């Protein structure tokens, strides 16, 4: 039986790498007596997989994990059961049972929402800037947005403009753009000024990290980019309802993508 959970990760837990978060869940599931299925063999392990591992230092209100269960008599109680064994910095927000033939969320990921916030105490040209929204509009109005993407061996220039769906400095506007409600967040955004919201393509083919957008934005206003200046927080992860196997639809394509949060996908 397949299921998916959505969880948040914040505070000091941002320093726990994703392999350790996996171990954390395995132990929590055992404490909570969740009937997770085990692989066979001498050292059986629980069948779990993350949609998209979160880097060390980042926080999130929308992490997803797929799991195999032996049984699930009371799905509506699962969130509470699991949370009874979670610390207060990793909390389960949603639990859904999936059809048996559903694909792993890892393979379906098509987009992500992020919030990028300037940390308190950092000196920056963005600090208390009144025209932030205009800067973003100008930034997006460029014909192309070129950044150098570094991989292990090569460095190449890529145009990330098609990968930025929305960009805003106001939560209200961003919610209108994406058509979503983010509810209360586990990050205290009052502490940060300014905060930038973005919706970006994600997944194995078109994964654009918010760091790359920030790097491009800094380049645009001609200021050095220091990744340690910003707190990045994931707000949502989506699958593409129009995406079939092997096909990629961008927002402005003829057949545009239709982003559905992973917790609602295949429901």
């Amino acid at each position: 039986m397949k299921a998916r959970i959505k969880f948040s990760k914040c505070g000091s837990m941002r320093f726990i790498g994703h392999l350790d978060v996996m171990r954390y869940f395995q132990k929590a599931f055992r404490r909570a007596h969740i009937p997770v299925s085990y692989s066979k063999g001498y050292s059986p392990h629980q069948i779990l997989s993350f949609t998209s591992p979160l880097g060390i230092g980042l926080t999130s209100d929308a992490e997803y994990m797929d799991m195999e269960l032996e049984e699930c008599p009371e799905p509506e109680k699962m969130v509470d059961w699991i949370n009874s064994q979670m610390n207060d910095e990793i909390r389960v927000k949603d639990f859904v049972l999936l059809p048996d033939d559903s694909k792993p969320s890892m393979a379906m990921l098509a987009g992500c929402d992020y919030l990028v916030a300037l940390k308190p105490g950092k000196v920056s040209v963005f600090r208390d800037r009144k025209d932030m929204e205009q800067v973003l509009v100008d930034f997006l109005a460029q014909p192309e947005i070129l950044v150098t993407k570094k991989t292990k061996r090569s460095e190449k220039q890529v145009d990330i403009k098609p990968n930025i769906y929305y960009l805003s400095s106001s939560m209200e506007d961003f919610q209108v753009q994406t058509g979503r409600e983010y509810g209360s967040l586990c990050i205290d955004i009052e502490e940060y000024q300014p905060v930038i919201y973005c919706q970006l393509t994600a997944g194995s083919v078109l994964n654009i990290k918010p760091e790359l957008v920030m790097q491009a934005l800094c380049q645009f206003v001609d200021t050095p980019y220091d990744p340690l200046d910003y707190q990045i927080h994931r707000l949502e992860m989506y699958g593409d309802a129009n995406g079939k196997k092997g096909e990629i639809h961008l927002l402005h394509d003829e057949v545009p993508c239709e982003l559905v949060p992973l917790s609602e996908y295949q429901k």
Partner: protein
Amino acid sequence: MSKRKLALSDEILLSVEKPARYIGNEINMVKKDPAAVDVRFCMCFPDVYEIGMSHLGIQILYDMFNQWDDVYCERVYSPWVDLDRIMREKHIPLFALETQDPIKCFDFLGITLQYEMCYTNILQILDLSGIPLKASDRTMEDPFVIGGGPCSYNPEPIADFFDMFYIGEGETQYRRMMDEYKEWKKSGGDRIAFLKRAAQIPGIYVPMFYEASYHEDGTLASFEPIVPEAPRTVMKEVEMDMEHTYYPEKPLVPYIKVTQDRVVLEIQRGCIRGCRFCQAGVLYRPIRPRKLEFLKERAIKMLESTGHEEITLSSLSSSDYKELPELVYWLIDECSKNGINIALPSLRIDAFSLDVMSKVQDVRKSSLTFAPEAGSQRMRNVINKGLTEENILNGAMDAFRGGWTRVKLYFMLGLPGETYDDIEEIAILSDKIAREYYTIPKEERKGKVNIVTSTSIFVPKPFTPFQWARMNSQQEAVEKRNFLLGKVKSQLNAKSIKYNCHDADVSVLEGVFARGDRRLNDVILQAYKEGCIYDAWTEYFKYDVWQKAFADHDLTMDFYNDRERSEDELFPWDFIDCGVTKSFLLREYHRAKEAVVTPNCRQQCAGCGAARFGGGVCTEKRESAV
């Protein structure tokens, strides 16, 4: 949601290896309001987090302290070298994991002393905390620094750095210490006043209340208390009631993988064997098994509260736990229901252990472990290790028939009275095991046999029959190692035998600290100031700095290692009474020289002195001498 504050900034945490070492908040971490308790205690393991978190002793004491409403016990481990550098550069004070508060604001800093090579890490902890390194320089602003654990049985080389040592098991006298502390705080007395109270608690040693003098030849002439409150001998503390004592139900569960990433069930304390090189075998006498029912109950509770996927049994010699088969089969049953693995401790190879091993491990991948410790039967008699060649070969053969092909063998080099013939026997024994394997017809064998032979350098320890013995020099150790390597290579089955050995430089220093005296405090202090920390880690061990520190203080390592000590020599640790008498140890030393074995406690009481604690094996009914 209230946010936990962290002592280190994001920048720092993101720039060091494994930031999870420094953030606390592990599952089952105890949260209390520090303002609402009378005593703040910080427990320290002076090594990296992954090692320290594997120590059962701290888990026990952490649980004990935190059961008391008036005490809040927190933890600290040695910052790894990367963070160490940053903390020094930025003057960041060392902090406890729970509240992330500076160590300096605690009432007590308790440091566990498990291994001599951690001594410079103790200074690192004190230094980063901003606590004066020498106890005599501390003021009312500083915590009381207290040491405990196996190395506190010869605390002299580090005596200057501690206000107190607790000799023995922490379960028994800490409540009293906390109460004395609260009374002292109310009384408004000074530091010395508290230490005088503490010196009267059984098991507590306050080094500044004692004075040592030396003979011309460097040996100890006298060691006497200089205040009336300090006792002449300090008696070790033992927990005799293993059932109604502290044992955690909710051990801490780290986020990152630590060395012992599993539930640890301490099945008994102490050992009946009496191996003459083993310090733990003497210190924890008499053997005290825990009740089977108690262990079953705790196993379930700890698995429930941690969610660990593995459980292991801990003791000095698990095969001597009488109800071991019952316990292990019960565990196998219980664990198979829940996908939990059993990590077996090393067991004597027999029908029972082979059966359980085949049930819980993949026979093709797991190995058999033997610790003969010495190659020849004569040497095994010298060290009183009851394992015979016949035991080993028969055990190995049974295992080979059961499908095992990997064997690990542990030996020591440099044992007292060892000859080159004895060393050659190590290679011969390794080869005999391989030959045994190849007597199995080819069709029935599972490929090649794989033997790993390891040697460590014997280090004489206080409170063992070998405390009088001379330790091999580094050069001798290297020569013996090379000799053995040559002998291994010339065996018929040399291709099937891999030989590993332990670093000789580190062992020399371990030997010095193990049987050292007070004069070493300044040597350790200098070595630390000149950059030595993490000496237990080969990549950070700076032998040349140590050599210079000894020379600068007109001391030699040879004085401590390179001589057989005379039978009437006063040892720096003689003021400690561990229950086992010096006359028993000396008797055992003589028997060792004659290569005569002494029966184990269950066969026949050897009259070691530990019977005075009035329990454990000493009062067990013996079936009959075997």
